[in-house]
């Protein structure tokens, strides 16, 4: 049984097809990468899957449930979480609070207990802090436990988004260019984090330009060009596909 099924998905913006008739599946436990040149529709695809956009046609199934048209927060409750290419950090909060927001669904969210600071809320928050400290350490942000998000460097913020997404206890995690803008060392660190996330049983869908990283960690790859599927298969298969070489890798050769 596939965890995520994308069926004939299309999205147009004023006549331009950002994603067109796209079909693929993501198997549980895999690291599934989406590759393609700039403007191939990768981020639009993520936005369609996570409910940020509604598709023009086609549908998305998550755990065999039709989820197109559902709100991102509803999908989050079903176990889908993501990061962003353009950071969506809560810069008005502390780093750890960012992660704690990720933990939102696990906490008591009623208004009155929060307003009156009932013991249950205090206890829940205390446990939440512990979880989030662990998560920050897991992604390598141990030294930022007390920091304001606004004061952190770019590379750290990328990882903060991963920690926040993990705090939501997802079954599937969509990472949109987690290594973009990072230096080689940071890239390697993120690489490690992704592998460990996958090892913990979370399915990962990855959009990434860093081919070395993609080829190194992916179980399965879908290649896009102009919103259409160009090829798919294992890294070795995709690497050998002539269309991919022409459209994508060929550009570099």
């Amino acid at each position: 049984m596939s965890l995520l099924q994308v069926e004939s998905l299309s999205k147009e913006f004023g006549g331009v097809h950002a994603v067109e008739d796209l079909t693929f599946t993501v198997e549980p436990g895999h690291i599934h990468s989406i590759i393609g040149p700039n403007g191939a529709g990768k981020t639009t695809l993520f936005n369609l899957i996570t409910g940020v956009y509604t598709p023009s046609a086609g549908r998305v199934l998550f755990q065999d449930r039709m989820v197109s048209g559902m709100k991102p927060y509803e999908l989050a409750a079903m176990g889908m979480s993501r990061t962003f290419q353009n950071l969506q950090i809560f810069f008005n909060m502390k780093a750890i609070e960012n992660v704690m927001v990720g933990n939102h669904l696990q906490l008591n969210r009623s208004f009155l207990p929060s307003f009156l600071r009932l013991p249950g809320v205090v206890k829940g928050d205390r446990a939440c802090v512990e979880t989030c400290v662990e998560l920050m350490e897991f992604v390598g942000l141990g030294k930022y436990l007390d920091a304001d998000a606004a004061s952190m460097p770019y590379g750290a913020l990328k990882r903060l988004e991963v920690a926040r997404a993990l705090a939501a206890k997802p079954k599937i995690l969509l990472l949109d260019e987690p290594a973009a803008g990072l230096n080689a060392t940071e890239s390697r660190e993120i690489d490690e984090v992704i592998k460990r996330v996958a090892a913990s049983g979370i399915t990962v869908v990855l959009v990434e330009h860093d081919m070395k990283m993609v080829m190194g960690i992916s179980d399965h790859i879908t290649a896009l060009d102009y919103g259409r599927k160009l090829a798919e298969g294992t890294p070795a298969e995709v690497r050998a596909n002539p269309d991919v070489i022409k459209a994508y890798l060929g550009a570099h050769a």
Partner: protein
Amino acid sequence: MSAALLQYLFSGLTSGAIYALAGLGFAIIYNASHVINFAQGEFIMIGGMASATMVAAGVPMPLAIVLALLIAMAVGVILEKFAIEPARNADVVTIIIITIGASIFLRGAAQIIWDKEFHSLPAFSGENPIAVLGATLMPQSLWVVGVAGVVIVALWWFFNRTMFGKAMLATSHNRLAAQLVGVGVKKVLLASFALSALLGAVGGVVVTPITFTNYEAGIMLGLKGFSAAVLGGLGNGTGAIVGGLIVGIVEALASGYLSSAYKDAIAFIIILFVLFFMPNGLFGKRGTDRV
């Protein structure tokens, strides 16, 4: 009955053209800087007060008008230079409070420099009403509508046919890119304030024979101008004009057919209703948020 309807439309046109001119000032500054200038109404007041008091003091009307426009532009430039420019990167709400502070300051200054009394200008082409199909219109209303029309054409020419105008437009679309190709963003901001102050003052001069003016006249005009600009879609000149005319005409029709006590409320309900369905106003950009 149709004469009455025509009269309501004339009434709405007169008010609407005034609101439209006020709204246009909001649009220009918003375009260049994404700032909503709540002191826009005060530019209108300054144009009216300066020209009216100078005419009363014996200055020939054309000279008084030119001087009034220059005074308003100077105020606009000073405001941008010393209040907006230093806070350019601040929060939206922070800048709103700065411009509200500026409007209070300018009103306070006006009541000291001039006085608290109402002033008027003579109508430009006399006070004989023009009869059209049983309804009447004052020549000054035509002046307001005409000036609004000329302003729109002039602005279109400025933004589409002059180098500097195009540069201003470019800045509004992408500040960084404009900077990269050598457009002086600071200069553009300064010019946008000068331009909208000029526009406000022009409005102030042409409406003073109809509505009179005093140091507080800018409050209402500012509010209606803001409504017009938002209804039309912020930063869109055509939108501001259409928005102003809609507000004016809705008010007049509401007074005529529904209730004059609730005409302002009805205008606001219409604006709310439009925003519910078109959250960026009638002509606003509809782009999806990029994530």
